[in-house]
């Protein structure tokens, strides 16, 4: 071997197909993930509007859709949850922005395994198509909820949609797991192996830390879900009894024997709880990056932030049982899971304190990305503080499986995470497309979305305290729920307004892509490596050279410096700290 070219090097592709469809370029793949998530989020939102409409007008005949029956409602519940969790919250912040910016932020020309990267995107795409196909088969989509509790999900006669639709649902999730495993390996290897000279681990931006830890969580969690899904497919199609004991459905004795419904819950939540952090950690990273940039101040407690991400990731694997306090699991183990869950509140609180500390004595610039970062902090606090209620087994008795739970996780893992995605979009759009997004439209979008999401999800806590169970398609059958219908009506109106406001975002996105004012290489006067290269970045990210890193990521307002920011590649000295 006379010369050894770096394994990742590949020439810039020429044809349309290799450039935009089966591309090996991490930037194109990142955008592919992003636009897949954008389609998925509109599908998911549309489903949620149908649910909200049905809850308050159960008898309405909707144009084009027709009547929503109770089973249709549950199919919407299932598909809304599944699509949002997998194809939006896992796909956009991690696979989308992570793919695009992780290599650039560490000074690498691409991901470690470009072919694997392409494969993981197209595998995700196949998973999405299989998931959507469930709507169109006989019986429709499954009604067992995104958590797919067995035996409901493991029997083919437990309800409409539990036939082929449920098989497609499990298959799609299994395919998604394979894609996520490939992606996770790539992220981990890239972070460990491909950092530029001078980019020590503790000089990595907090976004990179978040993507890195998230990838480790994905590697450990998706494998478990994959196995759980395969066992479920076997129970459904080959008559095995992993999750199903002897059961009698509508008078018919089924052939299963000896299985454990709790086994599914343990496996599912062993994945499911880390999944919450897979959804939120990247947005935490983005919030840190944005708060520091627009506050013009170093992030408060960089190392504490890194350790907090690690602690959250580590503890995230030990708390799955808090989803199962009412499941019939041993009541003794509830204490262990409860203590671990409360413990996870500590690193979460550290992060919040540090975000607030970053704003202290700052000079905050209110560009749209910063607004979403501030919104993120507010939502993270609101969604986080309902956690210590649910984490106490004794308070989980009245609250478990009521609307309180969706209220909690929508604020924190849904909306807060999506605020991270919005913040990241407004922040990196100039780098990705070479143009600026419209600021006034961005601000209007922010204000309506922040107020709107609070109006939808804060009342869910009240409903939960009053005892409204989750996943009820109608509130007419249980007398004590009648007085909650007016509040539900308010939430439905809020949902319609909030969803309508998202059109402002989409218009801004596509209009700015073609008509926005040209962006400079560093429009936000930020410090990390993506802002040192051209806009949009060339195929190999840095145009033939590799950056050399001299400092940590957030050197803003350094006393005595010529400008109020010192880029990571800048040789200028910064005070030791």
């Amino acid at each position, binding site marked *: 071997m006379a010369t050894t070219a770096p394994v990742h090097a590949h020439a810039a592709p020429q044809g349309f197909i290799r450039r935009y469809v089966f591309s090996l370029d991490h930037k194109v793949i990142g955008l592919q993930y992003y636009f897949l998530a954008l389609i998925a989020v509109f599908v998911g939102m549309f489903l949620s509007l149908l649910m909200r409409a049905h809850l308050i007008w159960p008898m309405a005949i909707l144009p084009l859709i027709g009547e929503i029956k109770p089973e249709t409602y*549950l199919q919407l519940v299932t598909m809304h949850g599944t699509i949002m969790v997998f194809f939006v919250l896992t796909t956009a912040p991690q696979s989308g922005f992570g793919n695009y910016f992780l290599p650039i932020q560490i000074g690498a020309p691409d991901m470690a395994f470009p072919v694997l990267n392409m494969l993981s995107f197209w595998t995700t795409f196949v998973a999405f198509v299989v998931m959507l196909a469930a709507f169109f088969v006989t019986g429709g989509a499954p009604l067992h909820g995104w958590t797919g509790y067995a035996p409901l999900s493991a029997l083919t006669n437990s309800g409409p949609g539990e036939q082929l639709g449920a098989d497609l649902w499990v298959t799609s999730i299994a395919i998604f797991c394979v894609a996520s495993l490939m992606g996770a390996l790539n992220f981990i290897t890239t972070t460990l192996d491909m950092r530029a000279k001078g980019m020590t681990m503790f000089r990595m931006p907090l976004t990179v830390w978040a993507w890195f830890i998230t990838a480790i969580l994905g590697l450990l969690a998706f494998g478990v879900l994959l196995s759980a899904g395969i066992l479920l497919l076997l129970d459904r199609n080959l008559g095995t009894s992993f999750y199903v004991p002897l059961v*009698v459905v509508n008078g018919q004795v089924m052939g299963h024997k000896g299985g454990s419904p709790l086994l599914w819950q343990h496996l599912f939540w062993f994945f499911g709880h880390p999944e919450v952090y897979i959804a939120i950690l990247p947005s935490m990273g983005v919030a840190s990056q944005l708060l520091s940039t627009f506050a013009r*101040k170093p992030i408060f407690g*960089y190392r504490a932030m890194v350790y907090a991400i690690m602690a959250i990731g580590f503890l995230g694997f030990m708390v799955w049982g808090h989803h199962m306090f009412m499941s019939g699991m041993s009541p003794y183990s509830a204490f262990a899971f409860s203590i671990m869950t409360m413990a996870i509140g500590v690193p979460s609180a550290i992060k919040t304190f540090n975000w607030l500390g970053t704003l202290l004595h700052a*000079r905050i610039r209110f560009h749209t990305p910063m607004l979403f970062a*501030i919104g993120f902090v507010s939502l993270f606090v609101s969604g986080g503080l309902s956690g210590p209620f649910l984490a*106490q087994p004794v*308070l989980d008795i009245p609250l478990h499986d009521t609307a309180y739970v969706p209220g909690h996780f929508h604020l924190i893992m849904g909306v807060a995470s999506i605020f991270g995605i919005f913040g990241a979009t407004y922040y990196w759009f100039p780098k990705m497309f070479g143009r600026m997004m419209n600021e006034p439209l961005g601000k209007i979008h922010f204000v309506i979305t922040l107020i709107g999401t609070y109006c939808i999800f804060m009342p869910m806590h009240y409903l939960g305290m009053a005892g409204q169970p989750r996943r009820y398609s109608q509130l007419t059958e*249980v007398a004590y729920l009648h007085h909650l219908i007016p*509040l539900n009506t308010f939430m439905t109106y809020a949902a319609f307004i909030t969803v309508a406001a998202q059109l402002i975002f989409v218009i801004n996105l596509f209009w700015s892509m073609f008509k926005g004012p040209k962006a400079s290489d560093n429009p936000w006067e930020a410090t990390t490596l993506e802002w040192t290269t051209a806009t949009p970045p060339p195929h190999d990210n840095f145009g033939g050279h590799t950056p050399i890193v001299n400092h940590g990521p957030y050197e803003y307002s350094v006393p005595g410096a010529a400008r109020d920011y010192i880029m990571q590649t800048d040789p200028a000295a910064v005070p030791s700290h």
Partner: protein
Amino acid sequence: MGLALLLIIWLITFFSTYFFAAKTWWLPHGVSTAAPWIDHQFALTYVLMGVVFVAAQGALGWLVWKYRDRPGAAPVRYSHGNTTLEMLWTTLTAVLFIGLNLMGSHVWASERFEPAHAGSVPVEVTGMQFAWYFRYPGADGKYGRTDPKLMDPSAGNEAAVGLDPSDAASKDDVVTGTMYLPVNREVDLTLRAVDVIHSFFVPSFRFKQDAVPGLAIHMHFTPTEIGEYEIACAELCGLGHYKMHGMVHVVSQEDFDKWLAAREAEKQ
């Protein structure tokens, strides 16, 4: 924009807190011995979290307004953080969260770790798509045998749970679709499900427990007020989940005895 953000965040905080504090929508009136304990722990957690919520949102709103970039604003104070402060708030949150957790634990333990006392009323709850059935073992105090092959949901009651009439212990078993309980007596509950998971949720009792196929789950609680209370299924069980509804009648001991005798007579 700084002022707008301050107003928006503070108003959101105000309205969110107002509806909690005013108890506009709140836990229903509790009527079991565990309810006051659970409600006390709920209120304590609510006050502590409420203080943190208002403080954090209040600080966020104030900081973004106070430190907005404007002509003549004070220069940024260059700082990478403060280790003492980090240690302080880490310790404080750890003490707060773990302490809260320990305080509520005895209620959990008392209903679950110990069996029901002697002299409690045995009731077996069976969940199936989409109904609840309640079985009383009768004078012999023993539940008779049930057989999955005999289950006939369309016939209801004894036949629905598959009670085997050939077993002597099942002769005096009574199965009903409405639950009757004597007031101020402990209930020794056995929970079962025949098809999928259901969850027996009585908000007024502060009681919830999944009924799981293949498991017989034992719990106990004591209702404390005469009245009629609703049961709602709290675990997604299929298309009729929203109407898997039942009633508990908490009555005096005499009325309970009379009701049970009447049901026994009806069955013979």
